[in-house]
């Protein structure tokens, strides 16, 4: 944060020019210097330096909040969104929790996009909530959504009202994604006007590696930094707006330690592996008696969770989500 004249009573133009000549332009520079040394070097009153430092510390620090207050707030704002599939709900200890980031990782055609559609359809069942679907690869598909809303298929008005509350936005690179997330956070924090996002409860970011791979070059700090910043932004979104965030990811093989290629882990590396609160890995189940792979059966393994003991595996049927397997 840059220092400005008029920030506090002690920060007048004279003080500002003195700081500028000493090379102190930002608040952090000011705070990291010892106040006694600074007042001696710049020839200013010690109490002025102390008062500016106090103001800066008070403005810029993250204030401690009592855990009790957080607890009471959390109890009142926590919502558990069903995923639309009872097996997944059981895996996730009830469903998608608001304030948490859940990741679905799987190879191609293991049903990640379909599950996202189910979640979006289930999130708008309630008359008030809305969902945001951020899509890069053009995977948002209306017939799948309509299938998931089968219970109100006849009622045209209900279907329309639900579809209106699912917002689908196409973004084409990670910087647009950052801008969109900032916009959602800024809009939703405005109290005066009704927000265009409605009562947002679920944000889905489809196919995260597609955003990251184009910017990955040889410069490790660059791509790892962007990735960790993205993770933080998504979690901030989840926490401050009390929404559930669902992302999808692909799988890569694990090297070393005598592991074979059969064992897969989520892509995007070490930095990303620490970010989600919950992670489910989807695998295609083996083949049936004829030797053909079963296309509709998928094995979901919970590998990381903030609520349940892992690992926890269950099989779900993509064609008929209410079937108990």
């Amino acid at each position, binding site marked *: 944060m840059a220092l400005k004249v008029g920030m506090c009573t002690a920060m007048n133009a004279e003080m500002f020019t003195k700081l500028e000549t000493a090379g102190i332009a930002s608040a952090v520079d000011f705070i990291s210097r010892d106040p006694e040394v600074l007042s001696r070097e710049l020839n200013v009153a010690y109490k002025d330096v102390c008062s500016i430092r106090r103001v800066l510390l008070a403005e810029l*620090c993250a204030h*401690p*909040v009592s855990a009790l207050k957080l*607890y009471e707030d959390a109890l009142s704002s926590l919502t558990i*969104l069903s995923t639309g599939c009872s097996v997944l709900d059981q895996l996730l200890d*009830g469903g998608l929790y608001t304030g948490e980031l859940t990741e679905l990782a799987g190879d191609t055609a293991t049903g990640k996009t379909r599950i996202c559609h189910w979640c979006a359809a289930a999130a708008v069942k309630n008359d008030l909530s809305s969902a945001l679907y951020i899509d890069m690869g053009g995977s948002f598909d209306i017939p799948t959504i309509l299938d998931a809303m089968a219970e109100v298929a006849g009622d045209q008005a209900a279907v329309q009202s639900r579809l209106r509350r699912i917002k689908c936005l196409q973004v084409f690179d990670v910087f647009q994604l950052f801008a969109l997330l900032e916009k959602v956070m800024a809009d939703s924090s405005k109290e005066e006007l009704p927000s265009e996002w409605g009562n947002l409860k679920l944000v889905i970011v489809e196919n995260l590696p597609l955003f990251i791979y184009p910017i990955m070059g040889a410069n490790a700090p660059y791509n790892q930094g962007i990735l960790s910043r993205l993770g933080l932004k998504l979690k901030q979104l989840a926490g401050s707006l009390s929404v559930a965030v669902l992302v999808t990811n692909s799988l890569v093989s694990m*090297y070393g330690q005598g592991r074979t290629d059969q064992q897969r882990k989520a892509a995007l590396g070490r930095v990303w592996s620490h970010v989600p609160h919950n992670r489910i890995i989807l695998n295609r189940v083996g083949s049936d008696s004829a030797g053909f792979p079963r296309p509709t059966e998928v094995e979901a393994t919970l590998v990381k969770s903030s609520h349940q003991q892992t690992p926890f595996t269950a099989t779900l049927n993509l064609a008929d989500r209410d079937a108990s397997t």
Partner: protein
Amino acid sequence: MPKFARQESGVQLLTRLRSRPDLSKLDPHIFGQQQPASSSASSYSRWIHSKTRKLSTVTTGHLVEIYGPEGAGKSELALHYVARTCLPCFWKDISLGGLGAHAVVVDTELKFSVLRLAVILEKEALALLQAEGRDEKSDLDHDIKSDTKLNKNEQILPDNDIRSKTKSLNLNSSFKNAKHMSDNHAQRESHQYLRSPLNDKKFQNKSQICGESYPNFSRIDTGTDVGIKCCMEMEKGDSDGREGRETMSSREGLDRLTPEEVENIVKESLGRVKVVKAHSVHELFISLLSLEQDLTCNSQTALLLLDSVSAFFWEGRLAESSIYMRKFKPAAKGGLAVAGGMAQVAAVVSRLVSELRMNIITTKSPLVGQASSSVAASASGRKRKWREDKDDGNAGRNNSGSCQQEVSTSFLNEDACEDEHVEFLGKAWSNLNPTRITLSLTEGTSSETEAGSDTRLMGRKVTTATCSSWPSARRFTFVNDALIFL
């Protein structure tokens, strides 16, 4: 002459001389012993320490670092330490074994879940209360089990029988009751856990819970033979004293264990915890500075948990590598650009530990690991082998033999050094010399010998923890949200 003449207000002096709550009950190996003054401690504290070593009145805090791969349980272990710290010592004459001290949690990855802390507190309180009530005779169980109490609870929440058998806890199940999207009775049902069948579960599974909690109570407490003996003696002493009035007071004790009581214990403990969420390395630095000021005046706080000190490592490097930073703020100037800002944070942490005698637990993720270097070695080994084979015959064959050996040994070495600690936060942090607990996930599940008769421990993911202060490696796992040492 060391420059130690600095101003200090009266409050600060008194705080410095007063001592903070002692954490040695948490883990006597780590928190019990004196921490030697680290090399980066200020000259003032070093001077004081040298002068008063003989008198040994000056103590420093402890800096503990929990390092481990993702999913090993670093944050969980740290949260258990926090829970033990802020549980009250006594609750209506029942010893809870907590320390009743304040704690601060600094959350850098937005990972801290206060609901998770509440669940852990509830579990710990329950386990300790169960251990207290363990001495009762079994007929007492039968009396109470078969009675109206159970039926009463069942009537209040008819579905809870099913829910209490599921994996999730009382709290979790009541969340499902309270907050499912289709259900609009938010207000009323958010308090459903108050009426949850705490007693129900307790009485139904009493022998099981007691069987699990007694050995764990002693192990969680200390983990040494001495510790276990002490606990057993304490139990014996209690039971002796209680025998006379067993029927009366035990019944009373159990009667007092209403859900509201446990809820009050949890709320009182949560009131002792403060949470700070930092979103960038600047915010972390400034928040630690302002915490330093707060802690000077407040000697009730015994523990600071810095969850994930490595969260901003890559962001800091990203900022550092930008052209602006390289041109206008070279690292030599000592700005926040040094090592991604970690140097400044390390300085504040060292001040907190040495001068304010705070005990700090941090978790560190292995963002830069040995694995990357060994993968590179094995990859280059393979490449070398391929090149040798391609080039020529005999000479190549000899070389490829040795290359093969190289490849295989590098694979073998990976086993050893995958989980070893790699310092990537810079020299300032390594100079702090923290006590490191290294966690590693062991492949496979806990063996039968360890599980013993407790079948629930079979098939669980087990974490091995090693620490320079511990006499031997310890293994632990989580069962129903409770930390159990094997």
